[in-house]
């Protein structure tokens, strides 16, 4: 071990309690940071997945303006061939065409206004979790069959079950009267009543006939294999669009602008808190190092009288801090990883969170996501601020006058 290093190491343990308390502050903050950041990333991941996979998908091809207004007339013409082309060119089956309309759904007893989604029964299960939620009966089969799949809450309210008839009344693409009689073949249950009550799905062929769509639909949903490939796929899809009609491709961020912003809003408040935590640790370090320097004035005086430069003494103080910081970093990251790993298996939940989570279509437990990044970011910033805090005590060396320093006790 080199001499300066050994000196720094020994100096640290002259006051073991103080060193441990200061390191303790770092370890505490690091554990907290690792856990919180992993938890946040876990939550964001689930938020994005749940929101997008329920319905939205990663990309959608739409008519310009449809995203904001969702008017019946803002259509994608010849939507099935377009979906087929995208499917073939991207070599990805997770592409599905949809149409959306609003209608009054009436059973013998009740009527409710709902959104009617026309879907491709073959491909819809690959882009949406709704088909997987079918609890009674089955999902849609044939492309033009007169079938419908409705939510559990709606079925309860309409007082119908699998096999019963439902009348749909609405207006068609051209504003004319649209009506259809369909048989309920399946009931899906997401557990969120408002969601289940808000829409029903019918085959796209029937949808086109009923609402006089003439081969048009409203959106082609594309799910990429990985959320990171969205940008690349978007460019690819854009090149596949027909030239004879104006269409746009929206990525999930444009489709659900709230999602990224909700994450951003949450992140900024979290960063404020982390910032405060780091600053408090820095103060702790500043205090400790300043005290340790002031205590040793006499000793530093001797060292300087013997010919050591203030610069070298300053480096010694910085080195002590660096060792202490490294200790805090390693212990903090390790313990943080340990604590967080336990929660990645068992999940994390606070009382009341389930009700809140349900509102955003989230599970009541969050599983933190540990990665190299979440392990290192927090502790690294704490380390950086630790070193910054040591600058003032270290540069005090330059103000030291050997003779005066020798006199002080």
């Amino acid at each position, binding site marked *: 071990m080199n001499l300066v290093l050994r000196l720094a190491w020994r100096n640290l343990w002259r006051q073991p309690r103080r060193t441990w308390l200061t390191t303790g502050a770092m370890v505490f903050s690091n554990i907290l940071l690792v856990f919180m950041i992993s938890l946040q990333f876990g939550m964001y991941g689930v938020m994005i997945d749940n929101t997008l996979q329920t319905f939205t998908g990663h990309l959608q091809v739409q008519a310009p303006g449809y995203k904001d207004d969702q008017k019946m007339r803002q259509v994608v013409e010849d939507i099935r061939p377009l979906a087929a082309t995208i499917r073939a060119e991207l070599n990805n089956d997770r592409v599905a065409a949809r149409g959306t309309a*609003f209608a009054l759904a009436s059973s013998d007893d009740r009527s409710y206004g709902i959104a009617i989604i026309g879907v491709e029964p073959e491909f819809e299960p690959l882009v949406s979790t709704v088909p997987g939620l079918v609890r009674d009966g089955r999902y849609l089969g044939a492309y033009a069959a007169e079938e419908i799949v409705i939510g559990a809450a709606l079925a309860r309210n309409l007082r119908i079950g699998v096999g019963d008839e439902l009348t749909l009344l*609405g207006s068609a693409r051209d504003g004319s009267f649209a009506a259809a009689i369909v048989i309920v073949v399946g009931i899906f249950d997401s557990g969120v009543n408002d969601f289940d009550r808000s829409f029903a799905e019918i085959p796209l062929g029937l949808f086109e006939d009923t609402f006089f769509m003439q081969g048009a639909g409203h959106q082609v949903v594309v799910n990429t294999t990985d959320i990171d490939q969205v940008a690349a796929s978007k460019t690819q899809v854009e090149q596949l669009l027909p030239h004879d009609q104006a269409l746009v491709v929206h990525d999930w961020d444009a489709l659900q602008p709230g999602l990224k912003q909700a994450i951003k809003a949450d992140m900024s408040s979290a960063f404020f808190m982390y910032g405060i935590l780091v600053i408090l640790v820095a103060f702790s370090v500043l205090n400790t190092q300043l005290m340790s320097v002031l205590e040793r004035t006499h000793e530093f005086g001797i060292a300087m009288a013997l010919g050591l430069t203030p610069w070298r003494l300053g480096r010694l103080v910085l080195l002590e801090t660096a060792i202490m910081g490294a200790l805090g970093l390693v212990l903090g990251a390790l313990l943080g990883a340990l604590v967080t790993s336990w929660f990645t298996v068992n999940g994390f939940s606070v009382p009341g969170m389930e*009700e809140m989570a349900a509102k955003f279509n989230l599970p009541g437990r969050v599983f933190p996501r540990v990665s190299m990044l979440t392990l290192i970011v927090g502790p690294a910033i704490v380390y950086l601020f630790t070193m910054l805090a040591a600058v003032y005590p270290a540069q005090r060396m330059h103000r030291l006058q050997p003779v005066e320093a020798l006199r002080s006790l």
Partner: protein
Amino acid sequence: MNLQLAILFRLAWRNLWRNHRRTAIMLGAIVIGTWAMIFMTALTRGMVTDVLEDGINALPGHVQVHHPEFRDDPSVANLLPITDSELTTRFSAAGLAGWAARVRVPAIVTSEYDSRGVTLLGIDAEHERGLTFVDYEEVDGRFLESVDDTGIVIGRKLARTLNTEVGKRVVLMSQDPDNDIADRGFRVVGVFSASVSAFEDQFIFAGKKTVQDMLRIGDQVSELFVVGDDYRNVEDAFEKTVSLVDGNVIVQRWYDLDAYLGSMLKVMDGFMFIWIVVIFLALSFGLVNTLVMAVFERVREIGLMLALGMRPSNILGQIIVESLMLLAIGLGVGTFLAWAAIQPIKDGIDLSIVGDGLDMWGMSSVLVPQLTLNDVVLANVTVLVLGFFASLSPAWRASRYEPIEAITKV
């Protein structure tokens, strides 16, 4: 005893300033910590209040009365068994801060361009002025004028989707209790905006009498809501409401009606307490460190005091008082700074950059911080109490010194 206490305080105060650098740094940390605690708490409190008030205004009311089936099946078939006029007789004299009965049914609205599913509210506009989320003065066109007003008021977003505007006609379609289609044409007389954009899509207001006629339900209504004096304490309004209704109805408080809103207050209170404790813990390492150092430097002096007959309990008290004084000064300055930091943003911070995201959480894009005495006291008391416990160990250690050993210690 009083004299002793006075000496204790004076000693602690003077000791605090013997190493002014250390004390200043520690104070700095406490001030920043306190500032962050209270500032953050005020922002969070403001946010929660905003969400709660918006949510409660949308419900609306603090207490609601429905047919027992209505919540799960909000249909025209599940009306209140008590007629509107009977409700009026009973509730007018009850001395409640506010109440109103309304018809609430799902409906389809159709313009010549498009149709949408909505919630149709048949209301007595004058009667519920100021009780719901709609500001009548801010409406484009006009708001409803009477219970038999033949116009409707729709949200801004819905107006755009339907391609309609003030003066144009739309058709509303719903069902009557016999499940026959009930429909009627209306003229749009007003367009409202709401801080939560989903409301602009969802609600359509029409005259109560007009809707009752359209749905062929005579003098019946779907729900009654009551506004009490304070949403934090609705028991009084709840009791009164329960005593005024009878028969096949269910009376619920706002936190039963909306589990999300109900859990919000709890979750946020929990979060704020955790935040305060976390900050304190981060501070406590420095605090204990400072005390340990202060005791360590004064070993000989403490030994001398013990030798001269000062009781160990007085040494203990002296260190604890020193620590609490340090905390109290830091807390005072920090609280003041937090208050000062809130002054320039008292009227709200514009967060519209992330407006859509806040919309998702049910928040409007202007955040008005709310500094409540309760939260300030909670933060200060928590820190003082925890600070007391954190100082126990170094103080205890100091009071247990052997006088002889301590005096001879170099």
